[in-house]
């Protein structure tokens, strides 16, 4: 067993999850593949969304995968960083908007 929780080499083994649950695993990968196909959004736009979500989810495998995916699609580092800021802004906004709940409570209890 590895002494760390994350091993970069494990990303290559992602497909193996199907071995212990063929039907569900296959359905997931089929769905996953479809999602990233060119649609109303370009595959490039989807890649940037995935990169931003990879950061908000703090998934190291996804960060590796979608940084590389972006590079393959010609995405620049400036575009990648801007996408991450979008994720960060939503994350921090989601935290701060709960401040209204705190303010409501304070006003109710001690207003």
């Amino acid at each position, binding site marked *: 067993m590895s002494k760390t929780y994350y091993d970069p080499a494990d990303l290559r083994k992602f497909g193996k999850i199907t071995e212990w649950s063929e039907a569900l695993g296959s359905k997931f990968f089929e769905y996953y593949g479809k999602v990233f196909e060119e649609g109303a959004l370009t595959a490039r736009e989807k890649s940037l969304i995935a990169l931003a979500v990879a950061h908000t989810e703090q998934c190291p495998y996804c960060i590796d995968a979608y940084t590389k995916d972006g590079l393959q699609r*010609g995405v620049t580092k400036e575009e990648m960083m801007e996408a991450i800021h979008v994720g960060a802004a939503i994350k921090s906004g989601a935290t701060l908007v709960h401040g209204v709940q705190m303010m409501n409570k304070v006003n109710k209890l001690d207003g």
Partner: protein
Amino acid sequence: MTKLKTQSLQKRDSHLANSNKQLEILSNGIFQSGELPTFKSQISKTDQFPLKARKLEILQINVGYMCNQVCEHCHVDAGPDRKEIMTRETMQQILDVIKTTGAHTLDLTGGAPEMNPNFRWFVEEASKIGIKDFIVRSNLTIIRANKKYYDLPDFFKKHNIHVVSSMPHWTRGKTDKQRGEGVFDMSIKALQELNDRGYGMPDSNLKLDLVYNPSGAFLPGDQMAMEKDFKKALIEDFGIQFHNLFAITNLPISRFLDYLIASENYEDYMYALVEAYNPEAVKNVMCTNTLSVSWDGYLFDCDFNQMLELPVNSKAKHISEYKEELLEGRNIVISQHCYGCTAGAGSSCQGVVA
């Protein structure tokens, strides 16, 4: 002015300047341990071994390794210090072959082919023979490198040369990172000059294609999507037009291999190539219809095999010994670098193959 990105492996006295060392690396490690299948075992699974050469369609001539640039990922290890230059005598032997072969494409590469002192003579003589598609792989900056090259766009036009040029990205930062400071601006200027002569314009017979190869340890994306992005950016930012974009995979040899090892990306890159292996791409790999001729006239299955010093498996080893019947049907010489041409939609000097 452009600033050289690095030095050739040969000038650095690197052990990787030796092709045997490169072949050792490609055969050992993860391939020797069986962690990854060798290219031979991979193509054997679909009964595609041995790969056989078909009828010759493309004659690719490397007229010398001298170049005004020293790109980080050059598979030729080209640079200003390289002195291997094709002589007029060898060129004459090639002209004699062109007259007899049914190849429809003549593809001149280097180095910077324009730096060969006999380049113009060769183009003029070869043009007289009447090749259907006469390609010169120009790095663009050479056109602006020195006054003696300023008239190249006119020279190309006069001989109806199909210009194919490298352009790693539509942004300055990514281009200069791979090819040297100042390369982007100079390339843009050269492209504008080619456009001024009619090259790359819609409906123009003066063909101008760009070659995209990734600036780092990753595979190229979808060729059509990349072409769309390149066209949009180049027309909007600089008013530049071109015909097609060829997405080419960097093969793990020479300076790119050196880069992969130094940046600790070698194993991951080989995994990526093997995982992207596409048996459909094997059917049309360029070595099956191409012959590569080195600066000293020797024959190879492709430019990559030339750099690895893997000669053709035929009695005819030199252009002076060329006989179609000795080369057609020959077994192609392979190693693990061949995975570079079979990844995803495949890769060749003409872009994707599957």
